[in-house]
């Protein structure tokens, strides 16, 4: 909704996915008393690059293929794991987002992190960059198929219709004081926009703003009309009513300023958030009002 820096899809996914989903739960371990040759055999057999060192269920260290290579160079391949391993262990919990793992990889330059359960503090898995990539790609693929399925369902009318300019007009009559149905027209608008193939985040901004607009017309006026023009690159909403008009627009734009009667507040509206909400959701907003004549509100959301 807010127009702050957008994060990339991959960042979002790395936040959504938890360590538990990506980690390898089937862990191969070595004992502190094993030799470096034992380590090598295990790494080779399983085609992995590192092992947690476990002694009687306790995680004591991490040993990697790099450690093994260093041992070979120094001719120490028969030494015990406990003398070579990294014992300053950095671990991660199952419920942390993958983004935490990525940050840890960047910070500590390790190739893998042991994963613990937050409650039992027991070692339950291990996570490498490969695990993270695999998990993100899986999620990406899943989302991609969902999106494709969604796209196929909705035709994008602007691509199908050949014209120099296509504008689709939707008109909604709003009856004043008819509170029972307040919000209904915005709900119709939501379905219409989705049906036209408008993206969900754009639809959401339009619908929030139109719901506030609809509420204002119902609460304060005897009725009006909301016209929505859907174009290829923007959606323009125009709301016109026949009075009573806003005497101080500047004040009405202040969050929390409200002239709504109590019965409106009891319905959960009239908190003075209407116009500020509309402004926040739109890329452009214009409001003209004359007391005794009515109000003309226009807002635009760019696609």
């Amino acid at each position, binding site marked *: 909704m807010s127009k702050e820096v957008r994060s990339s899809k991959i*960042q979002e996914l790395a936040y959504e996915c938890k360590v538990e989903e990506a980690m390898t739960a089937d862990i191969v371990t070595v004992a502190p008393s094993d030799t470096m040759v034992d380590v090598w055999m295990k790494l080779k057999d399983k085609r992995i690059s590192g092992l947690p060192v476990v002694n009687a269920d306790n995680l004591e260290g991490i040993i990697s293929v790099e450690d093994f290579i260093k041992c070979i160079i120094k001719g120490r391949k028969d030494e015990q794991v406990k003398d070579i391993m990294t014992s300053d262990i950095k671990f991660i919990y199952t419920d942390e987002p993958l983004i935490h793992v990525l940050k840890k990889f960047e910070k500590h330059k390790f190739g893998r992190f042991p994963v613990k359960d937050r409650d039992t503090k027991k070692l339950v898995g291990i996570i490498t960059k490969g695990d993270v990539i695999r998990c993100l790609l899986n999620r990406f693929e899943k989302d991609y198929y969902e999106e494709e399925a969604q796209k196929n369902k909705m035709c994008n009318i602007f691509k199908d219709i050949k014209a120099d300019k296509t504008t689709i007009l939707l008109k909604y009559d709003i009856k004043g004081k008819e509170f029972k149905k307040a919000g209904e027209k*915005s709900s119709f608008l939501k379905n219409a926009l989705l049906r036209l193939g408008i993206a969900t985040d754009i639809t959401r901004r339009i619908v929030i703003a139109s719901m506030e607009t609809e509420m204002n017309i119902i609460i304060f006026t005897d009725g009006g009309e909301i016209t929505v023009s859907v174009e290829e690159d923007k959606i323009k909403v125009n709301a016109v009513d026949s009075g009573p008009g806003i005497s101080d627009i500047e004040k009405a734009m202040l969050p929390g300023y409200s002239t709504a009667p109590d019965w409106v507040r009891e319905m959960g509206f009239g908190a003075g958030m209407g116009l500020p909400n509309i402004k926040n959701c739109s890329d452009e907003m214009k409001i003209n009002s004359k007391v005794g004549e009515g109000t003309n509100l226009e807002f635009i959301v760019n696609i």
Partner: protein
Amino acid sequence: MNIHKVKQIINAKVICGEDLLDLEVKMGCGCDLMSHILAHIESESTLLLTGLTTPQVIYASDALGLKAICFVRGKSPGDDVIKLAKERAIILMNTQLPLFESCGKLYKEGLKGISENEQRSEILKDSRTCL
């Protein structure tokens, strides 16, 4: 947290959407002001807890894409509201607990608040270097 667990924690009764209880919610929002809901809820995976039972609760939730609402203080909506919720596949529940206690219990069990979405933006912003 799925709705089965929500139901259990605040001892809620399901009004409609009994077959949708596997739904996961990531955060909760307790609020009686629909404008605040419209302005502040960003994630569709938010459970709305409210004492209001008007059709506008459904319309506002629908605008935001919310899929689960729990009425507090034992309130039950009218048939018109239930019908609107059913048409939109929104789960409705009610609990005898007041708003504060319902929210408190759920928060204690790990359901996050909507301001934590802001923390999320912070974390995401902070993660640019490693992605």
